[in-house]
């Protein structure tokens, strides 16, 4: 019964994603417009066709699919995190990856603003040139590289602080501490580089505006990898949901599988954050939304959360582009409103007919 229900939901989410992709292609800086028409009839109006081709193919399609991929990565990471920590409040950014990525981006922004080598110098009140470290390499790294590197390094730092993955609570605490400390450092950097503030805000609220085909392919590749790993590791999460002792008695290699989970978590989150910035709430909400309609094993939950996250972010992104075109709303604001609103509605609907279960 649940198996059938899960597969129906899976197909429904895929169908919804296709529908949203078609809609997403029609929404852009001119609001809603039908570009599919001229695109399908290239002979009727060649000029119109060429314009539609460029806008749709170069910009909107990679952007729309990129939004799906980023959402899918975050949904997947969210399901993994909630299973790993056995905590319904866990989200993909719990191990410090968000603040690591922010710090990376802030450093690059500051380095770009101040010119290579003056980041340390800017901190001296008397204005003497004094370089703590060369910042030329930071600029070359670029925002994407810095965000990814920052996210992964932050998770490694968390792992080091928690001395491994044996104790979930210690891992959780270390993640929170790393998050707070790196967050504070980010604000320090921004204080000395106020002109980076707006660009930083854009990163913090997330945006799919600059997702091209390369970014899209990278995220899709990581998603495939992470999905496969997730399917392999689902057994551990199922075991863990019965309690640590039970999982141990089932003969699961807890430590190595936890390491693998953390690695997948870091990779998926890092890839999404690097391309689209910090998009709130998708990772937290997607698994809950799935659980509210179907109870299933972690294997399917991971896949469905992934599909749900993709749909959620795609819908939010389409709205973000369309609502006040040609201006854009930060997509993170809309994911919070959409996902949060739906989650609240589920909670208020009560428990009858499969209400939310935490």
């Amino acid at each position, binding site marked *: 019964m649940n198996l059938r229900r899960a597969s129906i939901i899976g197909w429904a989410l895929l169908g919804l994603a296709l529908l949203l992709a078609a809609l997403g292609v029609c929404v852009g*800086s001119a609001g809603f417009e039908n570009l599919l028409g001229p695109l399908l009839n290239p002979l009727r109006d060649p000029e119109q066709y060429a314009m539609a081709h460029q806008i749709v193919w170069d910009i909107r399609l990679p952007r729309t699919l990129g939004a799906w991929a980023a959402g899918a990565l975050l949904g997947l990471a969210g399901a993994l995190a909630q299973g790993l920590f056995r905590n319904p409040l866990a989200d993909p950014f719990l191990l410090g990856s968000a603040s690591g990525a922010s710090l990376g981006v802030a450093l690059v922004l500051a380095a770009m*603003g*101040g010119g290579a080598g003056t980041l340390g110098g800017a901190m001296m009140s008397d204005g003497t040139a004094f370089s703590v470290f060369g910042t030329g390499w930071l600029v070359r790294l670029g925002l994407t590289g810095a965000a990814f590197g920052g996210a992964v390094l932050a998770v490694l730092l968390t792992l080091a602080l928690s001395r491994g993955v044996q104790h979930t609570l210690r891992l959780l605490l270390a993640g929170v501490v790393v998050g707070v400390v790196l967050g504070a450092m980010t604000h320090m950097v921004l204080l000395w580089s106020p002109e980076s503030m707006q660009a930083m805000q854009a990163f913090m609220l997330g*945006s799919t505006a*600059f997702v*091209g085909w390369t970014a899209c392919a990278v995220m899709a590749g990581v998603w495939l990898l992470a999905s496969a790993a997730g399917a392999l590791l689902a057994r551990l999460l199922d075991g863990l949901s019965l309690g640590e002792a039970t999982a141990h008695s089932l003969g699961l290699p807890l430590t190595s599988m936890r390491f693998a989970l953390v690695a997948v978590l870091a990779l998926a989150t890092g890839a999404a954050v690097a391309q689209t910035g910090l998009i709130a709430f998708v990772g937290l909400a997607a698994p809950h939304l799935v659980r509210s309609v179907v109870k299933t094993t972690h294997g399917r939950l991971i896949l469905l959360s992934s599909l749900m996250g993709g749909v959620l972010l795609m819908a939010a992104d389409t709205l973000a582009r369309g609502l006040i075109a*040609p201006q*854009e709303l930060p997509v993170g604001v809309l994911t919070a409103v959409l996902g949060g609103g739906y989650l609240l509605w589920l909670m208020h609907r009560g428990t009858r007919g499969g209400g939310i279960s935490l």
Partner: protein
Amino acid sequence: MKRVVLVLMLLVSHAAQAFQVVDDRGVSVTFAQAPQRIVSLLPSLTETVCALGQCARLVGVDRYSNYPESVKNLPQVGGGLDPNIEAIVALKPDVVLMATSSRVGERLQSLGIKVVALEPKTHADVKRVLEKIGQVMAVTDAQSIWRSIDAAISAAAQSLPKSVASTRVYFEVNPGPYGAGESSFIGETLTRLGVKNIIGSKLGPFPKLNPEFVVRANPDVIMTAERSVDSMAQRPGWQSLRALREHRLCVFSTDQSDVLVRPGPRMSEGARLMAQCLADKAGTGKTTAPWLKTGPAKP
């Protein structure tokens, strides 16, 4: 004649004895005499004080004030939004000039320090702020200084050929992308220079744009700061922009950006920087849509 001058001087000195200034918060500030020790917490206000020739009266500035050169030697009292109250109080200023958006005003006032909050956002604001600060410092040549700034902007505009009127410009403030709209301070300068801004006034001063909007508008010239130019060509669809393909880019260094984004007395210098680049980069040719060149062959 001498007597008239004497009477006038007496009147002026008498008027300077006690006067009131209403700042941008609508608060009326009373000065017993013209303040001699001034702390400025906003770079554009610092520059305004110095443009009025009163740089010597500054005793402290915020950490972002870096022009003119002499203010770099003054004590820094933190940033405009996070100033060090103790440091300001220790300087015993007669008045603190700051932006209205800062919370620090109330705290300083309760400590008995006079505060004048001014928020220059447009060309008209720059004139008003110049006059206001002139009033605070009891200097009389604010009007003539404004006239010379205004004349310099007109001169920058006149240095450009008439054909520049068909040039469509996109000014990117930061890689959000946030652009400068017609109603912004930068947009007003562009209008004075006679070029078209691709961002109309109804989008507000600094809208966060969908990058697709810029691709569609296909501006003739893109103006931006050094920091964001590198990533531009990598944005989806942007390689085909005429401005990028033909290198019609005005890239401003960090120092030049300071001049351009600060609504202060150096706005004429900003206009000159933009005009120099426009004279260089703005072609007279009619805009060609990028898809006519990159699209497939016509049937």
